[in-house]
C-alpha cells in the first residue's frame, strides 16, 4: 500500500476509534448511536443467520439491473446524440442542469403507473444514473484523437472496425468514468427508492428498523450498505488505476 493509502486507513481507523470511545464513555447517547463494534457484531450475527439474504439479493439485483440498463442505453444514446449535433445542441443545457433537478419528486408518478413493484425502483435507478453515462460517452467520443481516423483510413479499416478497434479503446477511459458514476448513482437511487417505494430490500429493512427504534439492526444494515458501496467503488477504482497507469494518465 502507498504512503497515502496508509494515511487514509489511519484516518478511518482513528475516526472509528473516536466514535467507539465516545459511545462507550456515554458522550453519545446509545439511543442515538451505538458503538461501531456493536454494529459490526450485530451485522455478523444477521449475516450468519441468513435473515438478510433475500433483501441483499433483491437490492443488489436491482442495482445491477439499473446499472446495466443505464450503461447500455446511456452508451447507445450517447452515440446517437454525438452523431446528431443539432440534437446535442438542444439537449446540452438539459444535461448540464440534470443533476440540479431532484428526479425523486417523480416517485408518486412511478407508483401510480407501476405500483409497488420492482419496476419503479429500477426506473429511479436508471433515471439517476443514465445521464452520467450519456455525458461520459459524449466526452469520450469528443476526445478521440482525430489522427486515429486518418490511421484507420491508412489501414483501410471500415466503420465498424474503426469503431471497435480504435475509437472504442480510445474513448474507454471516459466510458469507464461513466460506468463508475452509473454504479454509484444507481446504488444511491435504489437504496433511497426502497425506503419509500419497496415492500422489501435493504433500504426497506433500514426504514423498518428505524420505525421500530431497533438501533442495532438499523446501524448494522447501514454498515453493510457502506461496506458494499466501498468495496464496489474500491474495486472499480483499482481497475481504473491499473488502466490509467498503462496509458500514462490519471484515474478519473
Amino acid at each position, binding site marked *: 500500500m502507498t504512503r497515502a493509502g496508509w494515511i487514509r486507513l489511519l484516518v478511518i481507523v482513528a475516526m472509528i476509534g473516536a466514535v467507539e470511545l465516545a459511545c462507550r464513555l456515554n458522550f453519545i447517547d446509545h439511543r442515538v448511536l451505538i458503538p461501531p463494534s456493536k454494529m459490526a457484531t450485530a451485522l455478523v450475527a444477521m449475516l450468519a443467520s441468513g435473515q438478510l439474504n433475500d433483501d441483499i439479493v433483491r437490492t443488489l439485483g436491482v442495482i445491477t439491473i439499473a446499472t446495466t440498463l443505464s450503461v447500455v442505453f446511456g452508451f447507445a444514446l450517447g452515440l446517437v446524440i454525438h452523431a446528431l449535433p443539432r440534437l446535442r445542441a438542444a439537449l446540452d443545457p438539459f444535461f448540464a442542469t440534470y443533476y440540479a433537478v431532484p428526479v425523486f419528486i417523480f416517485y408518486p408518478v412511478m407508483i401510480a403507473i407501476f405500483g409497488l413493484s420492482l419496476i419503479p425502483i429500477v426506473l429511479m435507478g436508471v433515471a439517476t444514473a443514465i445521464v452520467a453515462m450519456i455525458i461520459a460517452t459524449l466526452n469520450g467520443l469528443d476526445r478521440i*484523437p*482525430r*489522427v*486515429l481516423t*486518418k*490511421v484507420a*483510413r*491508412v*489501414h*483501410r*479499416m471500415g466503420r465498424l*472496425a474503426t469503431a471497435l478497434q*480504435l475509437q472504442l*479503446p*480510445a474513448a*474507454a477511459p471516459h466510458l469507464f468514468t461513466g460506468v463508475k458514476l452509473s454504479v454509484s448513482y444507481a446504488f444511491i437511487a435504489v437504496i433511497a427508492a426502497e425506503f419509500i417505494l419497496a415492500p422489501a430490500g435493504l433500504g426497506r429493512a433500514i426504514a423498518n428498523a428505524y420505525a421500530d427504534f431497533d438501533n442495532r439492526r438499523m446501524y448494522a444494515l447501514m454498515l453493510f450498505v457502506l461496506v458494499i458501496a466501498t468495496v464496489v467503488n474500491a474495486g472499480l477504482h483499482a481497475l481504473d488505476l491499473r*488502466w490509467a497507469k*498503462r*496509458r*500514462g*494518465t490519471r484515474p478519473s
Partner: protein
Amino acid sequence: MRGDVHAQFAGVTRVYPGAGGHTPVHALGPIDVALHKGEFFAVVGPSGCGKSTFLEVLAGLQQPTAGTVTFEGHAVVGEVPDGVGVVFQEDASFPWLTVWDNVAFGLRRRGTAPSEVRRQVDDALAFMGLRNFAKAYPSQLSGGMRQRVCIARTLVLQPRLILLDEPFGALDAQTRLLMGDEVLRLWRTTGATVLLITHALDEAAMLADRVGAMSARPGRFIEIIETGWPRERDSTIVAEPTFGEITGRLWERLRGESLKALGHADLPPAALAAE
C-alpha cells in the same frame, strides 16, 4: 540518376468549400510534380501553405478538386493505395496497446500468420531500436520513441511509398537530428520512395535528394532544389558548407512567402527590417 516516376501530380488543386457562408479556401495548386522511385523528396513552406494537404491528396486521404494524382501508374481516388504508409505529426500510437502490439496492428489486420507477424514485428523493433521496449506501453516512452513506434508500425507493412507529415515536429532539435539519421537508414534499407513534409529547412536540406519550396497559400512549388547528397549520408553533413548553401537558398526563396503567410506582404522593406 533518377528512377522511374513513382507518383505524379498533374494539374492538382485543392479548394476547401466555404462552409456557413464563408468563401472557399484555395489551399493548393495547381501542382505538377513527379516523385521518382527510391528518391527522398521533402516539401518546405510557410505555415498553412498546403504542405499537409499535398501529402494527404497523395495518400488518398483528400480528393483533389482538379487534376489527377497517380501512384505506380494508378489514379489515387478516395482511398489510401496499397503500398503507401503514412506517419503523422501527432502521436498516433495506441496507448492501450504495448509497443509490440502497436507494431503488429497492421499485420494482424491483414491476416498475416502469427509466426510471420512475430518475425516481422521483432525485425521492425530491432531496426528501430525498440527491442527492449516491446512490452512497454507508449505512455512509458519519450515523444521520440513513440514516433519511432509509429514509424515501425508503418515500416512493418513494407510500404513502397512512405509519407512523413512533419513526424519530428514535436521533438527537440537534437532528437530531430537523430531521428533524421533513423529515417535515412530506413530509406536506404527499404529502398522506398519517401515524401517528407516539414517546416524545418535544415531537416529538409539534410535528408532529401530534392526539396520542393512551396509558396504561401495556395501552395505551389516556387522552386525544387536538388541537394546532390550521396545516398550514404547522415546528420554529420550539417557541418558541410553545401548544407549551409542549400538552407540559405531555401530561406531566400521562402522568406517572402513566410512574410506573406504572416500577413506582412504589403509592408515596405524598411518596416520589415525593423520587425
